[in-house]
């Protein structure tokens, strides 16, 4: 039975796979990191036991500086709020990691599996700053938005958490129900630069 289970990312209907290789010279490059595990973690950053538990479970210290991120072999962690983090893990490992967190953590905390709730889009390319400037009011200058920083902000008329992966590479966490809007927006904003799907 499980062999015939059809799994669909939020942008499944856009059939991005079929667009791969259609255009190679675009100033904007888009890739959907689909079907990853997404976990929302809540807890008290001033609680040493909580921090130690997370570190034990994920192999990396929880980023507690506002708007920072951290990465281990197991997980990419993004700071969302003083008591809230997004943990991105390999596709399918979310159940195991959630269980691991519940094992290592004590006291007041919360974990929610939100793997179906959002998708991760990666935007890059030589004109990526132009597209980002059309989409968000956040200052993209490296002084204010260095590599590794994550900001929760507006993206066109919706919201996104944006992680800067490198100087010209951004990862966007987009809500499932808004992902089609974001896809349309990216296509429109990329018109003058050209859009390549990878």
């Amino acid at each position, binding site marked *: *039975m*499980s062999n*015939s*289970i*059809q*799994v*669909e*990312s*939020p942008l*499944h*209907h856009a059939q991005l796979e079929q667009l791969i290789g259609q255009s190679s010279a675009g100033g904007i490059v888009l890739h959907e990191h689909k*079907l990853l595990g997404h976990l*929302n973690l*809540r807890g008290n950053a001033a609680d040493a036991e909580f921090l130690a538990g997370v570190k034990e479970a994920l192999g990396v210290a929880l980023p507690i500086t506002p708007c920072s991120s951290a990465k281990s072999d197991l997980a990419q962690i993004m700071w969302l709020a003083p*008591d*809230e983090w997004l943990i991105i893990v390999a596709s399918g490992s979310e159940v195991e990691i959630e269980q691991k967190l519940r094992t290592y953590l004590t006291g*007041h*905390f*919360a*974990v*929610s*599996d*939100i*793997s*179906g*709730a*959002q998708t991760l889009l990666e935007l890059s390319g030589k004109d990526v700053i*132009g597209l980002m*400037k*059309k989409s*968000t*009011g*956040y*200052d993209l*200058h490296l002084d*204010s938005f260095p590599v590794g920083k994550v900001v929760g902000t507006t993206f*066109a*008329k*919706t919201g996104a958490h944006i992680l800067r992966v490198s100087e010209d590479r951004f990862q966007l966490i987009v*809500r*499932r*129900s*808004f992902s*089609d*809007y974001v896809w*349309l*927006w990216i296509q*429109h*904003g990329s*018109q*003058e630069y050209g859009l390549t799907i990878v």
Partner: protein
Amino acid sequence: MSQVNRIAGSSKRINRNRTLTFSFNGKEYKGFEGDTVASALLANGVDVVGRSFKYSRPRGIITSDSQEPNAIFQIGSTQATTIPNPRATQTDLYQGLTASSTNGWPNVDFDLMGTVGKLGGSMMPPGFYYKTFMFPQSLWMSYEHLIRKGAGLGASPQQSDPDSYDKMHHHCDVMIVGGGPAGLAAALSAAQTGARVIISDEQNEFGGSLLCSTQQIDGQHPSQWVEKTVAQLSDMDNVMLLPRSTVFGYYDHNLVGINERRTDHLGEHQLQSTRQRVHKVRAKQVILATGAHERPLVYGNNDVPGCMLANAVSTYINRYDVVPGNQLVLMTTNDNAYKTAIDWHQAGRKVVAIVDTRSTSNGDLVNKVRKLGIDIIFGHGVIDVKGSKRVKGVDVAPINASNHSVTGPAKHFVCDTVASSGGWSPVIHLSSHTGSRPVWNEDIAGFVPGDTVQQQHSCGGLEGVYALSKVISDGFTTGAVAAQAAGKGEGRYAGKSPKTSDPQEDASMALFHIPHSKKTSRAPKQFVDYQNDVTAAGIELANREGFESIEHVKRYTALGFGTDQGKLGNINGMAITAKSLGKTIPETGTTIFRPMYTPTTFGALAGADVKHLFDPARFSAMHKWHLDNGAEFEDVGQWKRPWYFPQPGETMQQSLERECLATRNSVGILDASTLGKIDIQGKDAREFLNRVYTNPWSKLGVGKCRYGVMCKEDGMVFDDGVTVCLDDNRFIMTTTTGGAAGVLQWLELWHQTEWPELEVYFSTVTDHWSTMTISGPNARKVLEKICDIDVSNDSFKYMDWRAATVAGVKARIFRISFTGELSFEINVQANYGMHAWKAVMAAGEEFNITPYGTETMHILRAEKGFIIVGQDTDGSVTPQDLDMDWVVGKKKEFSFIGKRSWTRFDNKRDDRKQMVGLKPKDPKFVLPEGAQIVFEKNQSIPMKMVGHVTSSYYSACMGYSFALAVVKGGISRKGDSVFLPLSDGTTVEAEICSPVFYDPKGDRQNV
């Protein structure tokens, strides 16, 4: 005939190798690349470009910049690309440009309204609109028809705009508005500190006043310095240059709005390119280097075509090689305008005379003119202009400015052009946008920016600094100071200032309004605001009628209204008001200039947020299936939800009846994914639920579901939904589709502000789950085919939930019902939503499982008397009003939100509007939703309204129509008749009944 006024000059601002053809009012003309529409029309000797707003007088081009009040055109050749009201002076010429006057009816040279005495003129004094409103409305309507037709504010496009627009956000250390000598110097000096600099200018190239100047810089033509400076700036990575970019507004916290015209100069509609782009710049420091506008003098018949600003005349000569006439009379209050006479003379045309209002002057420019042998008449003014479609001559008379009189006989001079200069007015518009009051500077007889809360600097002409060498050094200094304020550099400009020698100028005279031998009210019309046809006499009349505040004068006369925003006429209007009231100008003050600085297209302001990007559309994971199966959609918030699923040939009503009957008789399926879902975790979760819901949660066991109602603190219902207990410390709350975001914020508000001690966290999981509700007597049979748990009534009771596997996918199944039928709500992770939906459809095929949408859901729930928050409630309805006291906990310890308010006097009234059912007397008639209800059929209007219909449908299951309504004291009126007077004049009767129409005992959901 072609370009009669184009001289063999040497300007590099136009490209004589590229001739452009364009049309104006149906005639074809030629110009050059680099021309504006205005310079090209003047080159071709076109005098009349429009008719005035109120008096329908022929008007010509007066200025060369954003001040232009007359040359305002309709530009574009099709109903899709036409643009109302661009200024010809600011519109770059392109091949094939099509322009026409906006306010000539039927055409500018022969104006029917002008010949019959346009409605206006003497019939339309200042305050006409206000006075007319006092007459009976019928009279106003007949006036309005003609005024609108004649007033000519341009025509809107009749077809969709084919162009594309967008917006960009920027952040910088120093934003410089204006690319003239001050702005360029400021940009260079700021940029050299490493600061992030943006400089914008509304013209097609940088240079500002230097584009039409002949004053040498470092021994060279000023354009050389401009070129060099712009090249330096272009080479710096930290500088962004925005030509053709108008700063239209200066907003709070140093936000600057800029409209960049990217393709307007290339032609109409460019494919694959953004026509206009709005840049929203958040700057640490803003430097305003907006310069100054020359001020015209106010004199008799000063609107006859050929009357121009002195500096505009110089601009056309020096920048465009266009001399807009043959014989010039120049009237001035200052030395500076003598440049125009020199330019005119050097262009080989005749300067008839210079009329200087001062008693004398010995400035360098005046002496230079003397050497050229040009006649200067001191102590005189041009008091009247002769001619109608072009200046034919002027009357010049000796004047006494201090007592506003003409002191001797007038002398006539033949000429075709009158240039006037009353000095310069700093362009303070932007600095006024955030509420800063301008300050009068006596030395320059003009307003300069006043105190501001913005991080703002100004330099050059805006500060009343006019000598070029000082303007440039002021720019350098201001740029460095602003950069330092933004944290960059030492606050000093390290480079060298270029050398330029300024002519020595004698003092100018503060004069605005030239006297006439007759009283102002009897003198020929002396225009102050050309665009709104406001005259000196009109302003004095307003003052005599008691309008003394300058803001009242503005509104009474229309001075400074509309697209003009007080550019050409405001200072003169204030000066005339001040004089007429016996006050000083600073005592009179200014009106407030508002955005937009110049008109900005709606397209630019809308940006890319149009059509499918206007508002985000949200979709569930099963949306593609709904599309493929012919669903019609309904907007619920931003969600697109299936409304109903018509089959070929069905009407909507037929679809609804089929969907309802299928669900009641077999099984239906609804996509309920859009309901809000909040994951609530923590040891105090239960206590928190007790405080925010009206009903108790202390005893809800693991594996159970409960319906809850949420009120605001005023006791009014604001959301409802089912919350399930996952384990002792964990609940999933469902909310209404539209209320999801608001409820989460509401919970956070209480937790963060009032009860931070409660250990509980809330996370939205709305998008994580796909939810499908199967409902109907065969629902269990469908579910058991694809589910791994026992779903019999004994082991899976009504209001239980179970973890299970559905179609191979992990699921949570809630046995809850919004239809009154046996129902299961299947929740799966959204990436598997489509898979599960298809599996349920396949399993249900043998039972003819029927997808239904929001409309059938509404009918089925209304048959059961279940409310929809926001449809049956409106923020003024308590649970008691809904006859839902059963959902209110009586023994809860904590005074939960809303409880205290129910005992307020107003909420205890017996005659509050209460929720009831209505059965229309005619069982086929569906009452309109929103229809008002009265108790007595025969009443005089206005009738006493006692309630209204909130939900109303035809029930296929019951075979009659029914409604939910709120009626005053309705709960105790069951069995009574009420009446509904409808908008078509008929009145229908209905009976108040219980809102539960179908299966009142609730047997069907418990099977």
